[in-house]
């Protein structure tokens, strides 16, 4: 390394060009290094975030600048049964799907934490649903949920003879709601499982040895060692999972587009339908903004609710 840096040192000493000196001036260099990232984030994230809040208080449509209308959009939403339906389904979808993802994902992580042949191959396979574009796997689910040629109906009706008629997965509101939740859980398990597996591998085996010397059962070891030790990472993964499940768009848009009879609209798909497809930018923005309180609440709840144990024990700096 010294061989390559020596000549440049000589050059720098002989004629320190003003550009070289400028770039070695620390404050300038810091500004230059941060400029691209901060610039991109400001123009395409912070500014639109503020603009979105502003739009929510105007009656902007596509092609027409709106004027400030105060809380009119929100008052309208308050009386809109579709918005209430979307709020209900968003909360329901998030709650059920998150519970399913974490129950199954934690189980899968515990299974993968055992020692068995082909472990790394299996870990790679498990992550596949998360790697593949969601819309494309959603299309596969749409086909699996087909009213006439569903493979699940075929199994239940023609192979196992449990039912006599096909299941109408996407035709009735509750069936459609649960079908979407199943697809979401399927897609979310890998992320949860692999993240939690990483957490499991950091738990020191000596804790388990000590517990076993004290005669703890497998359930007690899980309840009093694994679970508390996993709390911090659970809190982080759950915060992420809740945020991205609540604001989910792709699955619903690809499989049902909010139907049947608007029963599966999430707030994000409703915002898209009103704002982009319907052209009512102001109203769409109001729906999008109405997600923010839910997100803040869910984040605070999952983060502080679960991470409480951590700061109670005074392990803030790790």
């Amino acid at each position, binding site marked *: 390394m010294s061989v390559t840096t*020596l000549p440049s040192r000589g050059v720098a000493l002989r004629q320190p060009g003003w550009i070289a000196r400028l*770039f070695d001036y620390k*404050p300038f260099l810091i500004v230059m290094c941060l400029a691209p990232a901060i610039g991109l984030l400001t123009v395409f994230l912070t500014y639109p975030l503020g603009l979105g809040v502003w739009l929510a208080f105007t009656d902007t449509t596509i092609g027409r600048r709106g004027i400030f209308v105060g809380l009119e959009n929100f008052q309208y939403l308050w009386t809109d049964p579709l918005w209430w339906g979307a709020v209900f389904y968003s909360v329901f979808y998030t709650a059920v799907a998150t519970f399913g993802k974490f129950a199954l994902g934690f189980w899968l992580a515990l299974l993968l934490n055992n020692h068995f042949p082909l472990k790394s191959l299996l870990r790679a396979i498990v992550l596949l649903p998360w*790697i593949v574009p969601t819309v*494309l796997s959603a299309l596969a689910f749409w086909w699996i949920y087909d009213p006439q040629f569903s493979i699940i109906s075929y199994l239940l009706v023609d192979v196992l003879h449990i039912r006599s008629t096909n299941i109408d997965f996407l035709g009735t509101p509750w069936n459609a709601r649960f079908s979407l939740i199943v697809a979401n859980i399927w897609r979310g398990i890998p992320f949860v499982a692999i993240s939690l597996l990483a957490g499991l591998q950091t738990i020191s085996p000596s804790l388990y040895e000590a517990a076993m010397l004290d005669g703890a059962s497998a359930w007690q070891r899980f309840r009093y060692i694994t679970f508390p030790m996993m709390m911090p990472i659970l809190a982080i993964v759950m915060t992420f999972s809740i945020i991205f499940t609540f*604001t989910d*768009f792709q699955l619903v848009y690809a499989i049902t587009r909010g139907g049947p009879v608007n029963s599966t609209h999430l707030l994000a798909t409703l*915002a898209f339908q009103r704002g982009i497809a319907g052209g009512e930018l102001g109203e769409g923005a109001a729906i999008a903004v109405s997600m923010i309180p839910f997100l803040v609440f869910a984040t605070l709840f999952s983060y502080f609710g679960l991470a409480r144990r951590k700061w109670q024990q005074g392990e803030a700096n790790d």
Partner: protein
Amino acid sequence: MTDAAAQSTNVASATPDTMAWDSRARRVMMIYLPLSCFVLILLFPFYWMAITSFKPNTELLNFKEHNPFWISSPTLAHIKHLLFNTAYPTWLKTTMFVAIGSTFLSLFASTLAAYAIERLRFRGSPYVGLGIYLAYLVPPSILFIPLATVIVQFGLFDSPMALILVYPTFLVPFCTWLLIGYFKSIPYELEECALVDGATRLQILRRITLPLAVPGLISAGIFSFTLSWNEFIYALAFIQSGANKTVPVAILTELVTGDVYQWGALMAGSLLGSLPVALFYSLFVDYYVSSLTGAVKE
């Protein structure tokens, strides 16, 4: 790895006392059986996708005479239709262009930002890091409506350039945090030596820090590529004309036509659209796992 192995042998050796079963049968029941169920369910949609894309239409819609789980006479008709009768190759090219462009843009921006935050330590650098991290928590579903108006103002509506500029909003926070973690693992002394030798800061970044952070750069790169390949809502909202659409959007909006769904072509399109990332993934599995877990742990 060794920890996990040691721990599992401990668990295994302890089981005969608590359970009456012999430990091998118990192991099969408690580990291999649920594990194979998981793998079966997680992989089934892909199997279904693949098998549908090679099935002729007669087999596809006739479960009575043909076993739906197998193909008796495989056909390439769906893939041929996709490649020659639709704009699929164009969509693939656009998606590739957008994914590569936004990956390089966000790698450039986040390398510099991570270097400044982690190595040029200045007052308030942890707060800048935290701010960038918080940007990751802003979901695209909240942003796409105002962003659409911003894109129109910039005259970029319906252009792939819009996507290249917008995707870094969720790529830069992720990459920056990943790279901060990598830069942390590089010993400070190396840079101090170079400083004593008279290297400038940019030379240090280029000749010392970056070569040592190559695994991190690869992780960030493949992750960004995958995320931008899979992105949907921005591409749906900002692109109007058929030729400029990305694969996920195009399949959903251009191939789903009328009431009779062409499942063969749809599934073939999904399969082909998933292949690049799946291929990429199979080459770099370890980087994916390390970046996923590393980002969560940070």
